[in-house]
């Protein structure tokens, strides 16, 4: 197991290296240069360009960047958003906020989705099932920023249950309360997806012979389902967690702006618009790292749930 994890971590480093390389080269393809302020005189501009090596060919710039990263761990400085501050210092306080709303919405949506999906499957073709399925379709087909707006308008503005935007406060309760709506609006879509998959998988399991066998053993239907079908149905559901998380990360870019959360999402949009390239690369790196970690965790979970995966490689 430890060896497997090490292999995966090495592969992850390689992936990150490729992502950073592609990001570095592709971002430069965007029109307009980093410094094109007409009020700066040509001499000063030349000096700035020289200082940041912007007058060299792109490949050479990449070489310098990589050398700094690998040898000194220096990911460059922010040029526009907070000039001359190292990129990770700029990101510092923002990463936890973004990770919080993304991971909490993901982690909360999976069990809730499983419960609703299981419920719909067991009550297949009843009003309960139709009701759940209706909401599932609604939540999947409408993008998260629409709920974000609706929730903000009704729950926060009209009824005043929650703060309208992110509130900085010493009181943790106020802070987390203001993060509730954005987290909820991000959680609805993954919740619906998990419910949909769980329903389909469980219905399949319910028709399987091993459930019949469990019933012939003398279990009631619900006991047979609980002991034999639920865990089996969770395995395929795990498959969708990775793409789902990528989706949540994407959604949070917009949702953060709606609720004025000073997280990575809004910073990323700002840094791209401002041509703050090193900052953009750093943000992409964090997003990639988080996604790759999710993939790794999901793959390890497979082994925990499914003995066929765990023992597949072993000799009998």
């Amino acid at each position, binding site marked *: 197991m430890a060896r497997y994890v090490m292999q995966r971590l090495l592969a992850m480093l390689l992936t990150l290296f490729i992502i950073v390389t592609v990001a570095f080269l592709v971002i430069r393809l965007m029109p307009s240069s980093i410094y094109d302020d007409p009020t700066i005189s040509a001499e000063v501009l030349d000096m700035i360009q020289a200082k940041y090596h912007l007058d060299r060919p792109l490949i050479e710039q990449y070489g310098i960047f990589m050398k700094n990263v690998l040898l000194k761990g220096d990911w460059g400085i922010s040029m526009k958003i907070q000039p001359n501050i190292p990129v990770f210092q700029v990101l510092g306080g923002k990463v936890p906020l973004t990770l919080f709303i993304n991971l909490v919405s993901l982690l909360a949506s999976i069990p809730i989705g499983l419960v609703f999906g299981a419920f719909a499957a067991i009550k297949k073709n009843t009003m309960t099932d139709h009701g759940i399925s209706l909401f599932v379709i609604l939540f999947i087909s409408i993008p998260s920023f629409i709920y974000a707006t609706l929730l903000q308008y009704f729950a926060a503005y009209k009824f005043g249950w929650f703060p309208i935007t992110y509130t900085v406060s010493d009181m943790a309760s106020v802070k987390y309360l203001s993060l509730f709506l954005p987290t909820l609006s991000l959680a609805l879509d993954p919740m619906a997806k998990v419910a949909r998959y769980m329903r389909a998988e469980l219905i399949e399991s319910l028709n399987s012979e091993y459930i019949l*066998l469990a019933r012939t*053993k003398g279990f009631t239907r619900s006991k047979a389902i609980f002991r*034999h079908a639920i865990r089996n149905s969770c*395995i395929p559901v795990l498959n969708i967690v990775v793409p789902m998380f990528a989706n949540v990360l994407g959604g949070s870019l917009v949702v953060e702006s709606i609720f004025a959360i000073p997280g990575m999402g809004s910073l990323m949009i700002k840094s791209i618009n401002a041509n703050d390239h090193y900052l953009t690369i750093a943000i992409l790196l964090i997003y990639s790292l988080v996604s790759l970690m999710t993939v790794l965790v999901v793959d390890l979970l497979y082994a925990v749930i499914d003995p*066929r995966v765990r*023992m597949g490689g072993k000799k009998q």
Partner: protein
Amino acid sequence: MSKNNPILQVKDLTVSFNAFAGKVQAVRGVSFDLNKGETLCIVGESGSGKSVTNKAIMGILSKNAVIDRGEILYDGMDLTKLTEEQFCQIRGKRIAMVFQDPLSALNPIMKVGKQITETLCVHQKLSHEQAKKRALELMAAVGIPEPEKRFDQYPFQFSGGMRQRIVIVIALACNPEILICDEPTTALDVTIQSKILDLIKEIKQERNLSVIFITHNMGVVANMADRICVMYAGKIVEFGTCDDIFYHPAHPYTWALLSAMPDSESRERLFSIPGAPPNMLMPPKGDAFAPRNHYALDIDFKEEPPFFKLSDTHYAATWLLHPYAPRVEMPEELKRRIDRMVEEDMEYECK
């Protein structure tokens, strides 16, 4: 019907399914007795209602199934009227079932040991250690080598035949009185088939089980049965002892089934029954087999034949046995086959 004491009686059982297109009449008034210690084979082609009959006995019909009529009497109870809770006291404990496909009957992600012991823990309230001990004994008894090691393995580490043995262990765990085998060898290859059949015979003898054996393989029937029910289109068309059915078949459907059985002597092209079974959404009037029956009489298309008695043990539902019916003999080729079978049996017994 029988002078023995029946352990299970099915009377006029009628089961239908509410399907999208209407009511599918899967079982239409089936009656039979299962005597203590005997093996009753139910034969018939796919869709003849064999499995549905037995699922009704086990109380595991799917949700859209309705028992319209009839009763299943066991130990003074009518199984069709039990609540789910009451049924759970019988299933697994007193009536157990072996499934067709051992590859899909076991939970793929649960250790086989646990799948065996959970029955014991539910019904006999054994402790974990006691249950394990009993499971290991049973595993050894059905011929699973190294039961200690196998106990902690998963189904995917077993071969098909070994998995079927595990399914049999699960069925036997609580010492049931009745064992229902729903085509237990269909999914296995031929060499394993005979081993599993021998195993079922052996445990039946040892434990004095009463067995209902469902199959469409006449070869298996000959090997296993004490008595045979032949089913077609949701009805029993002929029943009798093994000898009655194999040596003196009376219903044209039984003739057809026996003619369609390959044997090593025949030189002719193997007989196949023309046409397809009727659509059970609208079962035909009269004898359901009539449209495919070479010997069908006019009345077969109008009225259902009652059972005619051939001997104390042997009954068949065909108008051909009516005193007014024209005398029809079974096909020549089948007669020759039966003569050969009788000869072979004699030789076998002389040896």
